[in-house]
């Protein structure tokens, strides 16, 4: 398994939508390499015939009756919004300038 490079960390931060400064990259990249090194033994453990477990207890889909029940009011839902306009969440522009 390859070591994780500073460039890869920068790429992953980009995928995760976090602006990391150069100083943060210098700090975090070597730490992530050490963490990955400590978990790489996992690759040799389980044979192909071992099924994966995704949840601790066996689950089937859970449904409820399709009936209306109380939810948040618009005011409650918007109460924590950074910016509100006309009873809606106000967000920065979504599209690029040229679009």
């Amino acid at each position, binding site marked *: 398994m390859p070591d994780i490079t500073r460039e890869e960390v920068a790429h992953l931060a980009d995928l995760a939508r*976090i*602006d990391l400064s150069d100083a943060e990259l210098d700090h975090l990249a070597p730490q992530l390499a050490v963490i990955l090194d400590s978990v790489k033994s996992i690759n040799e453990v*389980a044979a192909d015939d071992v099924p994966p477990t995704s949840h*601790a207890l066996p689950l089937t889909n*859970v449904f409820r009756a399709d009936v209306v029940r109380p939810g948040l009011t618009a005011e409650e839902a918007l109460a924590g919004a950074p910016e509100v306009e006309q009873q809606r969440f106000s967000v920065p522009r979504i599209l690029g300038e040229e679009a």
Partner: protein
Amino acid sequence: MSSDLTRRTAAELADALAAGETTSVEITSAYLDRIAAVDGDVHAFLHVDAEGALAAAREADERRAAGSVRSALDGVPVAVKDVLTIKGLPTTCGSKILEGWVPPYDATVVARLREAGLPILGKTNMDEFAMGSSTEHSAYGPTHNPWDLDRIPGGSGGGSAAAVAAFEAPLAIGTDTGGSIRQPGAVTGTVGVKPTFGGVSRFGLVAMANSLDQAGPVTRTVLDSALLHEVIGGYDPQDSTSIDQPLPALVAAARQGASGDMSGVRVGVIKELGGDGYQAGVRARFDEAVQLLVEAGAEVVEVSCPSFVHALAAYYLIMPSEASSNLAKFDAMRYGLRVLPDGVENPSAEEVMRATRDAGFGDEVKRRIILGTYALSSGYYDAYYGQAQKVRTLISRDFAAAFEQADVLVSPTAPTTAFRIGEKLDDPVAMYLNDIATIPANLAGVPGISLPSGLADEDGLPAGFQILAPALADDRLYRVGAALETLLTTRWGGPLLAQAPELKEVSA
């Protein structure tokens, strides 16, 4: 009078209320006074709701006067880890990204506390989004261990454990994803229970890792945990992973165990969780406790769980993977922090999101998001996440085999006593090793308790004893936990916390 009330257990307070010897307002005021007097040094609380707690206490007293008591703990106050939503009170999860957020709804656990009549004292400190083993990763500063204020109280629920240990609350709620209830319990000399996964609702618990997170009781005695567990546990249709079965009789199991009789109980000592890497004093107290169980009639066997050595690696792939997905919702659009990038005119939503997440998340959260993003990326998914999910199967099989030989399994809760604040802050792998003995239970979904086993000889600090039971058999934790607690407190001549140093009280 007031300091006397804060030293009593929740069960004793409930009895005193029932006997008419005191009132909920007196009890709640005594705890609020204690918080005011010592929390400047301990910093267990991020938010104290004196007004709301006293209003709830007055209502509890009115109910009792009218003969309509709601639960065994009606009127006994509780503190809640700041990762559970409470309508009208701030919920930060120890993060800057949620600073000032006031949720518009109650978590199911909180709703049940209210329905049962427990006044809520406030919100307790924690590692940011429950990521850590020391509470040093809180964006609002660390919590200090009441046994030694220069040391960590464990984490992520260090605030809840310290609040209970410092007599700032008789009861608290914690959450445990890899040990965040049990490990703080161990290093603060208190009791903490991680219920069976699905045994306590996760609705309103801000998720770190959905398949691992579990809320549970943080208290000073095993019986108090059982009382609180019965209030918060049981089926909740709002959580799709909630178990649709009645809870076992937990309080009855604790009362049965309190006799100290262990005859007929088979106890398995997990070979892989001990020995090298465990502090000598932690091992010595563990061995003595096992010997006490033998003397009380338990049949003790050694069990081997060979896959447990891979639990930490599996956990540090599964947990960051789930965390990176969960924390994607903090996008600066609908709630929480919004930061505009420097020097960008008319920034896009994506640029705002990047700047906000950089400013709002701390180092440990960034590490785990990036690690999770890596483990889930194409090309690595099978090698990391897929393998970790397989290891989880192996660990469950080890538990199943071990529970063929024993009714409960035991180990030290944490490999060491409380370390000094700052000692492991920038060494993530050293920090992660704190949870080596607690993680297997989360991966398999089985319940676990930690209770104090005594003080380590090297440093005079508390060590923890962990008991694990099969899924849905949470009552066994209380039966065996209460028995061991009786045996140990008899030997100590009182609770371990009576040996903790007195904290300096600041007059309000």
